[in-house]
């Protein structure tokens, strides 16, 4: 008697294990290699066993290489019977309901995948007490590893099955699985680029910092070392597996047996497939051409159209399984799709939403952040690094909120754009974020030029709220045990508690007293020395440190260091300089673009024309050190090459107004 009262059929499972057993063997060998074996693989015979946060730290990449491929392969092989005509006919002619077939194949696959995981876990647990094991872990670590990998494997296998039900070709099934598993990340990135390009003020986020990998199961798995799966993630993947399984059962009931060999098993997925492929192709091609051609309208439209055309043709070829797709219907259908998708891309950036002009009303704002490094407040966003303190980047001071809002209003009205070759000293990247009363966060990002926005910038940048966040005063206030001052090969430590306390107070006061002009100066003028805070080491020996600068405007700090006799030990003195060479730079036009930023080429040209002066006198050198700016190759400025006695050379710039009589006297 067949056991149809169960939801699976044991003979089907037996048959599957006989046919696909090799998958289980390969997975077992792979996992044994990737986990227990790696515990004993260490080139350094003297290395001490190390504690791990979880077992994915042991060869995590190798583990994940197998974990992202084998479950999908199992899905492809076990559900091959749906995609090939002859197996499909055989299986579907048997006196078994489709639910039984599906459940039986799923159970077969899970046996093939789960046994290796738990077997590997058991072996990892058994070798745990061995002396030559290079890692220290507990039984619960092993259990956690098994559970995590089981859930991820389950999800990938079920997902693979679900796509198998929806498609009719194994090759396409495999391609679609990986495309869909990566798609959320790629799509988010493309949309981010698209909005960033056309939406004025859109705060583009960058790279892995935004933890975008969590949107793709396989990327998350690859980055498991840096971003472990939380219990919440595992629950989500379990729930998704259940949902996808239920959907598979429902769709399988409706699936036609003759779809074996067709691209898409359900015709009502065809428009979705076509639109999806076209949308992605449009985003890629449109963004590519727009970036390459500085968003010229013609190129942008042409790029999007080309993408739409390629996407349409590709999708149509896959669906119809032929490259000869041209029929009378095609141009009309293409036009329809392209128009709709074009609108879908255009409407969000068209200004209809009012995004670009929207500045929240003052009474709705609860707190605000303004600064150049919103993402770097990673303490707030990067919740995975336990070593960074969780500082809220927002400030609730009403005057500050008002100042930021005024700056935002001015920028949104004037819409300044930074040219491609803008100078670092003329533009500031500003992230403006509001936390509203209703909990929502409104974020914008602008390149704001100093010119034309001085009053607004001054109001913002001289606020205590701005400086506290921009210079991270909270880090200075908490757990600083000592300071270390550095200036190339000069270094100095402050560790006397009284001195540390005084220094900390003065540094804080100096930062809070910086004017708008002082802060602008820091962008063009090198500091006298860098100041590093040294915190108390934590249990693992990890020591937090932050860097501040001894700016030329810090007169009180300078006087204190002078008084203590530290200033001479740390600042660059004219006596440190062996020689200085000065030229007036007018050579940009005569140099090829690639060499314009090489100061030595400018100097060579000047020397060849005998327009360079080399000096060793202390007085002008002292003036040069006092007024030096970062090197920038601008015509009319003066380029100075400083050769230190220690052998180091340094290039800097002086402007006309920086020239003291002593320096003017030595000009060639």
């Amino acid at each position, binding site marked *: 008697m067949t056991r149809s009262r169960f939801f699976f059929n044991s*003979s089907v499972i037996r048959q599957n294990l006989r046919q696909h057993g090799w998958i289980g063997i390969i997975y077992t060998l792979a996992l044994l290699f990737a986990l227990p074996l790696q515990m004993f693989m260490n080139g350094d015979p003297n290395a001490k066993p190390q504690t791990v946060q979880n077992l994915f730290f042991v060869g995590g990449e190798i583990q994940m290489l197998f974990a992202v491929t084998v479950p999908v392969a199992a899905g492809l092989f076990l559900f091959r019977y749906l995609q090939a005509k002859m197996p499909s006919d055989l299986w579907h002619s048997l006196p*078994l309901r489709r639910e039984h077939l599906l459940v039986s194949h799923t159970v077969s696959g899970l046996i093939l995948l789960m046994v290796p995981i738990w077997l590997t876990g058991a072996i990892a647990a058994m070798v745990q007490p061995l002396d030559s094991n290079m890692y220290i872990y507990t039984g619960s670590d092993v259990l956690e590893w098994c559970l995590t990998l089981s859930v991820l494997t389950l999800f990938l296998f079920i997902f693979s099955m679900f796509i198998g039900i929806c498609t009719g070709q194994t090759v396409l099934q495999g391609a679609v699985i990986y495309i869909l598993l990566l798609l959320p990340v790629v799509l988010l990135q493309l949309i981010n680029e698209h909005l960033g390009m056309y939406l004025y003020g859109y705060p583009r986020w960058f790279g892995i910092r935004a933890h975008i990998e969590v949107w793709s199961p396989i990327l998350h798995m690859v980055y498991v070392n840096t971003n472990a799966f939380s219990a919440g993630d595992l629950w989500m993947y379990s729930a998704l597996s259940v949902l996808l399984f239920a959907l598979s059962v429902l769709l399988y009931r409706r699936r036609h047996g003759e779809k074996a060999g067709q691209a898409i098993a359900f015709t009502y997925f065809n428009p979705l497939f076509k639109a999806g492929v076209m949308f992605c192709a449009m985003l890629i091609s449109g963004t590519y051409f727009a970036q390459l051609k500085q968003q010229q309208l013609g190129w942008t439209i042409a790029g999007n159209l080309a993408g739409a055309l390629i996407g349409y043709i590709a999708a149509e070829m896959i669906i119809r399984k032929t490259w000869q797709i041209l029929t009378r219907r095609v141009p009309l259908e293409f036009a329809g799709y392209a128009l709709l998708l074009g609108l879908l891309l255009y409407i969000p950036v068209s200004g209809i939403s009012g995004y670009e002009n929207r500045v929240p009303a003052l009474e709705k704002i609860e707190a605000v952040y303004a600064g150049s490094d919103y993402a770097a407040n990673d303490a707030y966003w990067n919740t995975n690094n336990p070593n960074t303190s969780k500082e809220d980047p927002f400030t609730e001071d009403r005057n500050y909120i008002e100042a930021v809002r005024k700056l935002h209003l001015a920028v949104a009205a004037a819409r300044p754009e930074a040219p491609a070759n803008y100078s670092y000293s003329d533009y500031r990247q500003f992230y403006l974020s509001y936390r509203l009363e209703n909990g929502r966060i409104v974020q914008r990002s602008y390149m704001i030029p100093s010119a034309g926005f001085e009053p607004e910038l001054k109001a913002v940048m001289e606020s205590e709220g701005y400086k506290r966040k921009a210079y991270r005063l909270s880090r200075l206030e908490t757990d600083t045990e000592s300071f270390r001052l550095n200036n190339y090969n000069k270094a100095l430590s402050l560790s006397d508690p009284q001195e540390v306390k005084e220094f900390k107070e003065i540094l804080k006061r100096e930062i809070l007293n910086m004017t708008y002009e002082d802060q602008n100066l820091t962008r063009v003028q090198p500091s006298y020395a860098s100041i590093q805070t040294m915190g108390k080491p934590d249990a693992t020996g990890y020591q937090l440190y932050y860097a501040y600068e001894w700016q030329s405007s810090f007169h009180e700090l300078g006087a204190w260091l002078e008084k203590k006799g530290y200033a001479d030990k740390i600042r660059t003195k004219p006596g440190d300089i062996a020689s200085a060479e000065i030229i007036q730079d007018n050579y940009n036009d005569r140099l090829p673009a690639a060499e314009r930023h090489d100061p030595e080429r400018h100097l060579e040209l000047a020397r060849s024309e005998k327009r360079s002066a080399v000096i060793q006198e202390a007085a002008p050198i002292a003036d040069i050190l006092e007024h030096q700016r970062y090197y920038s190759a601008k015509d009319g400025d003066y380029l100075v090459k400083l050769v230190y006695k220690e052998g180091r050379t340094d290039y800097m710039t002086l402007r006309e107004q920086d020239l003291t009589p002593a320096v003017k006297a030595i000009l060639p």
Partner: protein
Amino acid sequence: MIEIRGVSKIFQGEKAVDGISLTVHKGAIYGLLGSNGAGKTTLLKTLAGIYRPEEGTVTIGGKPVFEAPEVKQRIIFMPDSPYFFPQASIRSMAAFYRSVYPSWSEERFKELAAVFRLDQGRKLSRFSKGMQRQAAFWLALSCAPEVLIMDEPIDGLDPVMRRQIKNLLFQEVAERGLTVLISSHNLREIEDLCDHVGIMHGGKMLVEKDLDDLKADTHKIQVAFRDERHAGALTAKLQILHQEQRGSVNLYIVKGDRERISRAFHVYEPYVFDLLPLTLEEIFIYEMGDAGYDAQPILL
């Protein structure tokens, strides 16, 4: 009893089977004829519960087939090219069928080992096509089905094995009341096997006949009349499907009782009178010619 009522099956917008109705009685051997692409395979797969029809119903013993294990347990479908699980041998396939088909007869399986002298432990993929076909028959008959659906089953069998299998089928039909459906593109191949024949073309059923009736009922007559006017007089009396004149000899295909026809002709005392049995092929050519089809390309 197999009942197919108004079944249509659409593949990518084209009707592969178009409104077909068909009844096959228990213990009948039904031959489904038609050229390539006529829709035979589609109809058989729909009948086997592999395909779900877009329109119409397929029932066996009054119950719908699709997704009904209790009905499908009684059916075996043999595809046009035999397929077995990869790596499988006859023994492992038998074990699988044994666990899936409750009617599996171990006794029958052992009996048939004498007929099909195949190595049970050898991998089926190493067998020749004809041997695979034999293995498929062996397994199918061992399941002791009530309905056996075979798509182009004779291909690749040697004449001796063909004979053997025909005998086996006759035996099953006689002893157990097995109902058989066979498709073929070649009438001569199944002529001596079927008692009912249906001809499909372009997804439609053109003709459906009981062969015994047909053979008893349709006759070819070669006759040379004494007077040409006799011919005209005869056509009024008999049901003539087809007639043509070759010189002085007239050729008639006539439906009706042999004796009555013979008597009708002898009234005119023709010089020559020959009453011949028709081959099936001829019957269909004439029948379909009547229906307005050029039967030659459909049948051969």
